[in-house]
């Protein structure tokens, strides 16, 4: 058992030290986030149990670039489908089948289509996992309720102009129900 523990320990990512404020209402959180951003912090992060509306522009998070991945890979899947069906049935080993042409495009469309979808879908998911830095082994969490019913803002020490006491005060002023020094 302790072997497993040790393995896990070794794999655990080191969290950044910083200060977190926890709210019970996501709307207050959104306003708070806007304030924190206004006060010049860049690297701070919001943790919520579900996607909270308005948090993105409150924190200035740009629109995800993953659709481009989907598009490019979808295109790739499409071309692969076209090439593969053509190469296997017309080039590598052409066989006379049902009196049809060696490259019977209409009959190949379903396969080409499925390739497109498959590539697009899997690449998107891959991209998501990559960009979220998943999977992580037991990463540090600020509070278990953050995946249930509470909301948090976390400001890391290395953020521009970080001052522990000032930050704590600011978070309290922004109506945080709880403020604590923690790792994330």
């Amino acid at each position, binding site marked *: 058992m302790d072997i497993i523990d040790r393995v896990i320990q070794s794999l655990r990512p080191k969290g950044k030290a910083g200060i977190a404020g926890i709210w019970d209402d996501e709307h207050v959180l959104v306003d708070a986030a806007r304030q924190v951003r206004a006060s010049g912090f860049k690297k701070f992060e919001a943790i919520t149990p579900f996607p909270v509306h308005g948090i993105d522009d409150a924190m200035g998070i740009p629109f995800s670039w993953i659709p481009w991945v989907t598009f490019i890979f979808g295109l790739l899947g499409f071309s692969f489908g076209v090439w593969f069906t053509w190469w296997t049935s017309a080039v590598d080993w052409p*066989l*006379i*089948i*049902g*009196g*049809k*042409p060696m490259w019977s495009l209409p009959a190949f469309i379903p396969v080409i289509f499925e390739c497109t979808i498959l590539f697009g879908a899997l690449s998107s998911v891959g991209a998501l996992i990559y960009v979220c830095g998943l999977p992580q082994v037991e990463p540090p969490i600020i509070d278990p309720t953050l995946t249930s019913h509470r909301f948090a803002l976390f400001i890391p020490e290395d953020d521009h102009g970080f001052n522990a006491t000032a930050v704590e005060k600011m978070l309290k002023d922004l109506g945080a129900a709880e403020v604590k020094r923690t790792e994330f």
Partner: protein
Amino acid sequence: MDITEQTPPTPKYWMSLEQWRQDPDFKKFAESEFRTSPMQEGDSEDGWARREFLKLMGASLALTSFGCVRRPAQKIIPYAKQPAHLVHGIADHYASSYVDGLEGFGVLITTRDGRPIKVEGNPDHPGHEGGMSARAHAHILRLYDPDRNTSAKRNLQNDKRTNRETIGIAWEKLDEEVSAQLKKGKVAVLTNTLMSPSTRKLVNEFTTGFSAKHYVYDDIGFESIIEGQQRAYGQASLPRLRVDRARYILSVNCDFLGTWLTPTTFQRQFAKGRKASAEMNKLVVVEPLMTLTGSNADERHRIRPSQTLDVLMALLHELLVVKKHSSYASNSGVLQAIAPFSKSKTDLAIPVAEIAQSLWNNRGQSLVLAGGLSAGTENSAAIQMALNLLNSVLENEGKTIEAGGAAVLGSAQAGAAGFNELLNALNKKEVTTLIIHGCNPMYSAPRTAKFVEALGNLEVIIYTGDRNDETGRLADYVATDHHSMENWGDLEAFGGVLSIQQPTIRPLHDTRAFQDGLLNWLRAAEKGSARVKNSATWYDYLRSNWQEEFYPANRGGKSFEEFWTDLLQKGVVQVSRSGGASRSLATASLSGVKSSARNSGFELALYSTVGLGDGQLANVSWLQEFPDPVSKICWDNYASFSLKDAKQLNLKEGQFVKLMVGESSLEVPAHIQPGQADGVIGLAVGYGREGAGEIAKGVGVNAFALSQWKGGERITAGLETKVTVLARNNTFACTQDHHSMEGRQIVVEETLKDHLKNPGGQVHRHKMTTMWAEHKYTGNKWGMVIDLNTCNGCGACVIACQSENNIPAVGKKYVISGREMHWIRVDRYYTGDPENPGVVNQPLPCMHCDNAPCETVCPVAATVHSDEGTNDMIYNRCVGTRYCANNCPYKVRRFNWFNYTQLKAPLNLALNPEVTQRFRGVMEKCTFCIHRIRDKKSNAKLLDQALKDGDVKTACQQSCPTQAITFGDVNNANSAVAKAYQQPQSYILLEELNTKPAVRYQVKVRNTAELKGGSPHHGDSHQKEGQHV
């Protein structure tokens, strides 16, 4: 091929002085060396392949090594091949003969590495000209039948002969005991009609030697014909019929195309006259049952069996009395004989006057036929008399009928008597020892003949059958005979048409030729001619008989060696025989012929089927699973009823009925047969075999049990029968459940008149377009044309294909659930009034479509097109989705539902190594005999010749007695098939699907005013054509 068994009196090459001096020790040593040949040891299943190899090594060595001490004392010569060229893996064809009842075949036996794997017709045979019957094909399985006796048997009988204990017995011991018994005298020999001149001679020597009597009995006999001939022409022989010369054929209750006498030859002859032209023949059939002949009739009428004679007499009456035709019209004796039948015409629902007129118009080139089991009424002999007179009146004698068919009971068999005489002799205790050969009287003789009881008076019965069947079980000794492929012999199929029978494999078991038995016993008793004394073996006897009997008159400047070699190579020889000269009819023969008593109730008519015939081959699975050409039922015989009778009795298909004839009764499932005469029950013989083996066990009932013995002859038809409908039901294994074409264009029929005006005019053709450029086939492009006009639906192709392509039989249960495996099937449809419908047949192999729907849907490319236009099935690629079968509009694909490759040894020896065995779960179908194509092509390549049209023959084509199938390269404009493609009467099945099949059909032409079903109007699916029976 049994080369080493016997050492010659003085070998031309000798190894040592001992041998030269015929030193007995050396002989024993030499023989013993060969005794312990693989074939002789006990047989374990796994052992076979190895032994095969050893055997064939020996065989080929012996064949090739001239000058070596093991040089064969008996040479057998491959057909048109030099033995020196014998190569492993290359098939050889040996000319031989086969007899089935009274039908003699010249055959070519294909052997691969020393084992026969296929029987084909010898094209040089003037009778069937290469055509083969289903049974002739299938008799190869009897060679490898696991249920055959593997040695001589001694049955330990009690005095009731009911004991079933059997022990093996050494041949020496058997000869000892038998010889001792023969010394006591009172010997009788009971054989079937011996078609082999040399055997006839030997049997004669035997009977004279032991002053024994020779009796002749056939399971399905033609005594009445012979008697008729005897009394009419003084010749106790079968006439030779020339159906090909007849333009108007009237068959009165005679299934000459299916089962009567020599059907294969008749089919060939009939087909010759069937080519659609102004000279095309016309077939009128008057019969009680729907037979293969009836299904090919241009005009068909129904009678009861008891009316057979009346029909003939009515015709005579019409011709002689009413029309006063021919010189016989003034013959008082004849007129007297005819007088009682003046009324017949009116009782019969037949246009007698019309038929008589057409017969007369075609006199000299017409032919009237009658007889067979279903005509075996009490006055069957009278029928033959009337028939002879009728043909004479029509001046057919000497034109369409000749003397000297098979010289049955002719001089060679003089003094032979019939079964009745035997019965009398037995009852009078004139016989103590009976030798039975070539027939199975215990199975086929009527119970009322009390044959079994008569046997009680015998001391010893010796039976030469190959198993303990009905007769074998009552015998004391079963002197197990060779299979014909293991034995020498000769055959006279027709007067002067002789063929030789060569062994093509060393005897599989410790069996012995019947003839060798006779020779041994003669020698032991120091009886018989000098030839007997000088003949060490039956082979020597046969050879010297030929040397003295046939060679002198037919030497043609050849030495006997050359003559013999030539004979072995060709297999057939025409020798000069008396006969064929015109004969004069003894009109007196007709006197005293009277009409048989009318039966008020049901009349039973026994008949034999195309599949099983007399039942000798009942243990051959191929034949049991062979769909009857008319009813398409297999694995059963049945009491067939007409639609009307079935309605009256309220019978359902398959419902059991109890048939009572006198004392004897049978319980049989009923089959409702369109076209059968009302008041008639048909029942097939050949089924219900006992002790015949695992396959035959419990299949059907023995119909002979209902036959009666009256006035010294066997009555098989016109028997008054009581019918009781039972509650039980039977499901038939029927390969075709629906019998109407539903108005679809499947088989196209045309009347001769329309056809001559506009051939193929009835075919609705389609203009097909394509979306893309089609593939070009530059080399050979194989195609087939099937002429539905000459095809008569006999089904020989089905068995030929089965034998060629290792197609398994699946058994009754699985035929019922639709799993039969035949690669080519013959579809049969009824047209018109179901009471008396027209019948059309359509052989259906794989169509090898250029746009094959099966190929498109196969996910793994297991079925694709070759660049020679064939639709190939690659078994080892197949995963068995069965999508191809679903998508095949012709449904010709067959699936291996289970593992059918497990064969009970030695059946596996019958497999054709050229064709893959298919494992469970793969699809299979007709390949156009691709292996034959490859073989011929590589041959041509080796010889650096171009492939000639007709070089490649598919198995079905080769076997077809009517040569309805044309196969070849359609890219070769001069090939027969390419020409046939272009003929206007050719059409494409389901053309509108644009599958572009390589197989095309030619319309069926009927020589009638109008067609039974009317001409089908394509596109109207609800025109009533026949009914779902």
